[in-house]
């Protein structure tokens, strides 16, 4: 998968823990961990909306497209 999720970096910048984000967006820690570790297959707009609202950021601040990995066929 050439899309990666940089949730860790954004949480660090905002000084927020995963547990706190979990409580604020109403997504379980287990699911946020799946998202954070890049194991997720898809992200709902509603989840992205809630995360961006709580972290005060844009979707592009969390999701990244890795061109090199895409070129390798990932």
């Amino acid at each position: 998968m050439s899309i990666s999720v940089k949730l860790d970096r954004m949480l660090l910048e905002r000084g927020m823990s995963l547990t706190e984000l979990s409580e604020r967006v109403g997504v379980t820690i287990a699911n946020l961990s799946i998202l954070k570790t890049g194991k997720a297959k898809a992200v709902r707009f509603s989840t992205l909306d809630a995360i961006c609202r709580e972290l005060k950021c844009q979707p592009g601040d969390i999701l990244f497209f890795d061109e090199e990995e895409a070129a390798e066929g990932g």
Partner: protein
Amino acid sequence: MAAGQFMVQALGKRSIASVLAVLFSIIRIILIISLVVVLVMLSALLLIVLFGAGFSDVRWISRYVTDPWPAEVAELIAHAIRLGVMLYVVNKLLEILATLRARVPFAPENAERFTYVAAALAIGELARYVTVLIGIIIAAAFYGKASELDLEFDLELDVWFAVLVVLVLAAVFREGARLKQEQDLTI
């Protein structure tokens, strides 16, 4: 709505799946007993043959055994194979029913279980043909009256139909498991 209500009754505890699990557990016990009986009969028959006694020498056996011994042995082996396959299939169905009772019908293992069931049915049926055929050939060679034997080389189309249906079910459950995994990994 009605379909949803039916699903509630079909899955979980105290559901149709639970009732089936109880029925299959009883069937499993009956199959085990039947298999043991057939294996004991087969062993007894082989022992008699190995020790050189003809059926006519043993009154209680000659009452039940009318065919030459290779045919009888083949028939018993065919029965044992059929019972063994049925036992295996029932075990797999019980494993599948356990997932239905736990409300996890699209567990990835269920697709494999259905595939194994289809394979067991097909292999069992083929093994039965081979056994019966060998029995007929040996009996015919020994006694030259294969046409008079009770053994029948019948193609059971319903078994092959079941194999195809179970293979389709396996594909359905494989796809269901894939969709469930995708759903589980959608955050």
